[in-house]
């Protein structure tokens, strides 16, 4: 039981860390807000004065805005669907007793340790290249015309690359959850004559729902700001410009700090909307 004294001592000792963390968050946030109301063009002499909500209006009315929001949501949705479904499948598979289980598990988890830029480069140059890539050789071996993945199916390709990276994370969390499932329950169901699909649907899946929620929440947070894979593969061409990429383009390529900052504020708002939405729908699982 903490006394009044020990509680205030704890507060005092915690204060520096709390202040530091707050500052860490607040300083960039305040600066983004500040610049979003300014016409700030570094190559044209820097600060050119206050412009009110001009940057916000321009960012929203830009022809690239809605397509970028759409691309962001498609990528997030696509990767979530693939990683969760395949993740459950792989977790079930890895849970089976098999020879060389340890090695197989490490192999499955391996992509998670590859840096996003490196994996994107490998996918782009070694797999998806329409002349020298592995897929092109496979297609040709079967007499088909090689596909130029990154321009003909650009969004799908990026979803594939990102899913490959995040699948180990999903698998790992789901595997841990499956391992905590009481095997007696499954055995009882089996003895009662429940077929495998029903056992999965009524016992395993509900048991996994909490883990799936965790996967969806954590991945969404990271996927909303996905950048490296797009930068390396298509540089925002062919409809793969996400909101983050658009902001990057405005700030760094066009050197328009004000406009990009307004975009940054929109991105924060979007992230919060998605977060609230997710919490409402799936967050309930966490309380149960």
């Amino acid at each position, binding site marked *: 039981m903490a006394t009044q004294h020990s509680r205030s001592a704890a507060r005092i000792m915690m204060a520096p860390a709390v202040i530091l963390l707050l500052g860490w968050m607040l300083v960039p946030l305040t600066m983004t807000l500040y610049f979003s109301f300014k016409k700030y063009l570094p190559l044209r002499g820097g600060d050119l004065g206050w412009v009110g909500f001009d940057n916000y209006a321009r960012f929203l009315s830009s022809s690239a805005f809605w397509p970028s929001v759409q691309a962001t949501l498609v990528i997030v949705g696509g990767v979530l669907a693939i990683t969760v479904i395949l993740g459950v499948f792989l977790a079930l598979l890895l849970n089976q007793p098999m020879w060389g289980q340890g090695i197989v598990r490490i192999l499955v988890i391996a992509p998670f340790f590859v840096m996003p830029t490196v994996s994107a480069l490998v996918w782009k140059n070694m797999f998806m290249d329409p002349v020298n890539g592995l897929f092109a050789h496979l297609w040709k071996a079967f007499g088909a015309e090689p596909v130029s993945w990154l321009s003909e199916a650009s969004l799908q390709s990026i979803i594939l690359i990102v899913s490959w990276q995040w699948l180990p994370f999903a698998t790992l969390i789901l595997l841990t959850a499956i391992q905590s499932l009481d095997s007696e329950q499954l055995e009882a169901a089996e003895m009662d004559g429940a077929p495998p699909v029903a056992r999965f649907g009524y016992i395993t899946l509900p048991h996994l729902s909490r883990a799936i929620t965790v996967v969806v929440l954590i991945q969404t947070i990271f996927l909303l700001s996905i950048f490296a894979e797009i930068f390396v593969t298509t540089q925002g061409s062919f409809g793969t410009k996400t909101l983050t990429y658009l902001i990057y383009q405005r700030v*760094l390529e066009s050197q328009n700090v004000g406009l990009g900052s307004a975009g940054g504020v929109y991105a924060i708002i979007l992230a919060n909307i998605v977060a609230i939405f997710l919490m409402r729908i799936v967050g309930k699982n966490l309380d149960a």
Partner: protein
Amino acid sequence: MYLKSALRAATALTVFASTAAFADTITIATVNNGDMIRMQGLTEDFTAKTGHEVEWVTLEENVLRQRVTTDISAKGGQFDIMTIGMYETPIWGKNGWLVPLNDLPADYDVDDILPAMRGGLSHDGTLFAAPFYGESSMIMYRTDLMEKAGLEMPAAPTWDFVADAARQMTDKDNETYGICLRGKAGWGENAAFITAMSNSFGARWFDENWAPQFDSEAWSNTLNFYINLLNDAGPPGASNNGFNENLSLFQQGKCGMWIDATVAASFVTNPNDSTVADKVGFALAPDTGLGKRSNWLWAWALAIPAGTQKEAAAKEFIQWATSKDYIELVAENEGWANVPPGARISLYENANYKDIPFAKMTLESILSADPNNPTVDPVPYVGIQFAAIPEFAGIATQVGQEFSAALAGQQTAEEALAKAQALTADEMEAAGY
């Protein structure tokens, strides 16, 4: 007595400390091109001569541009020397962001630098960056495939000849593609190539009142010609190929022709890297008879950001790296074919260099490019494959993305041009033109 020796020791220490202070460590940001990598390998020579140490930050071209632009506009002060090009130098020089290089010693021989390079790296007659190497663009072609097609490459071909030859050389079953051109989006990638190409078709970015011209017939001709040519005779996935991707395809023997930087000549003729090293010919970039060819002008140059603490050491480095002695040093170590080309007149007068197969064509290409009059019709901007205004990089990258999508078949050339026109007009209005 004690006092005396203490004083002596102190004096000795001070002298030591002040000599040590003369030896600086300078940080240089540069691009990961072959010539720059070679320069890093030779840094010891500079350190031996001056005592200064060098730290390198080597980056991919697009990344380098963003890093140095952000650093200089935000006054980050991370670098003592930056590798920049003809686009940045006049703009930054005008903003007072660069140290003027008008006090270089006589033995450096500034007048030996090609006038086109000096002009492009100056603002109001003041040199702000020293060219490490200069380039134009030209056709590199496979002499064996040309012969097989029963054709002979003229020294100054037209686009019609090039397109016809490219279609005849193409043999898709054997992975031989008649022509490789830049298709990857980016102002320094496809936008640069197509802009230079459009000059020869009579197109221009802006008229004299800064109104964008993508709705003109000349632009429609350029883009349709480019897309049709690459669809018929280009490699698959051309819309993802930039300089490096095409270089690799050419070295593997998969391109009949490649129109790109003259600097690539030493890479495609180097037997260590190229499978077709002994079968490469060179010709001027094509035209359409309107008086402008589709070759560009560029220099990778070294500049010192204003406000650096190590200006003197940085200047010494620039003098070392862009001097005649450096060229000799590379020739001694790596052979004459590998010296940095296109910057100094004396190189092209050197008897050893005249035997290099691409030397003559490189110089001719550089001399035929005029950044002050880049187009058939007059324009208000300087620059051949770019317009030297701060907004250009941002706009051209987006325009390049529209062109790239058109090449990939996701939209027509007309749709791409309409979007390019709209977004350029928007950006120019916002910039206050």
